[in-house]
């Protein structure tokens, strides 16, 4: 029971301080919640984004004059993939990847043919060469775009 104006002032002051602290805590809590939700959506997009190499890795033809190869990639995830955002590395060299079969969409299960081109003319392969090829794909979902990277050991054969 409040016994005088002094205690009422203390009570009010306590409530104000508690309210301010609560406000800060709730805001922090809200930020954490939003961050977790965003991360959850990103994780959901990532885990449903996947592509797999369809070529027989035993002998993938490499054109050492044009510095190109043909890769077939299957959308093995559950999101539609972006045909224009495919990244390909052979070893540490980045190659450009362009659609070679006229595909305009890349839905789950579909195989798309890509021509990969070493535009920097860095790679020089003759005969057979075992290399590691790294492929990155990005889903074309709006909002959160998942990404997937796969590395495969393949044998490049120069004709």
């Amino acid at each position, binding site marked *: 029971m409040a016994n005088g104006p002094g205690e009422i002032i203390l009570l009010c002051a306590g409530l104000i301080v508690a309210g301010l602290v609560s406000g800060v805590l709730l805001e922090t809590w809200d930020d954490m919640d939003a961050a977790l939700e965003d991360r959850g959506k990103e994780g959901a997009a990532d885990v449903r984004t996947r592509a797999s190499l369809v070529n027989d890795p035993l002998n993938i033809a490499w054109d050492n004059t044009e510095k190109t190869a043909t890769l*077939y990639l299957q959308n093995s995830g559950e999101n539609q993939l972006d045909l224009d955002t495919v990244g390909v590395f052979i070893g540490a060299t980045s190659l450009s990847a362009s659609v070679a079969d006229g595909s305009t969409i890349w839905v789950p299960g579909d195989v798309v043919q890509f021509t990969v081109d070493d535009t920097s003319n860095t790679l020089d392969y003759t005969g057979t060469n075992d290399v590691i090829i790294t492929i990155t794909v990005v889903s074309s979902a709006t909002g959160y775009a998942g990404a997937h990277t796969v590395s495969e050991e393949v044998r490049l054969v120069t*004709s």
Partner: protein
Amino acid sequence: MAGSSVAAMVVGTVFIMIFGMATVSLVDSVNDSIKNADYELPEPQVEIVSITDKQESTGPIHFLTYSEPSINNAGSGYTPGNTQCDLVSSISGTGASVNVIANASGNVIGFGLNLVSGTGYTDGETVTIDCGTNPNSADFTVGAIHDQNTISIRNTGSETVDLSHIFITFSDTGSSIQGNPFAPFVDHYSGTNQFLFPGEQISTNPFPLNPNTHGFDAVDDPDRAFLAIYDYNDAESVTIT
């Protein structure tokens, strides 16, 4: 109890409720994140049981022979010069044609190179030449038919598989030439199945190789087949007879 104490209790209760709701929301978000982290994409497993490359009882025409008058008829009424004409089977063949050469009298004297192989023809059968003013009066003999490939697969996993997601690529290991991936159970399968259930095994119809579809011609003999479905692969040697 004084009014100020009641007010303090009410405010305290409201704070507790707000913190409780915020906690529930936070726990939900954590649970959703964990659920996403635990999510797994399909992992189908399909294995090649066998792949054969052999001459079937019928098939596309590999080459023709013409021996007139002992075996074949020269007929009459054919347009002098070269004309692409359909070849009519007496058994089950369809779709074949060839560039027919006729003399000034309208008798067939041979054929050119532009053979369209068709399908369903029998080795050694007589095919009549369907053009001119007296069609089918002349004929050729089927000298040989092309070998055809048959693919059998089995679902060895625990998941049902969409047949259109299975791709095969032929290779010739001797020359290190790799063909194009194709969907055998879309292109060469006449059954009604759309899915391959766990433990189920199916085969394609016999089919000749085609440069556009497979990256090899009907006369080629690729000796390796590579199956790809999602992250699962299998490879087998082709049994060539």
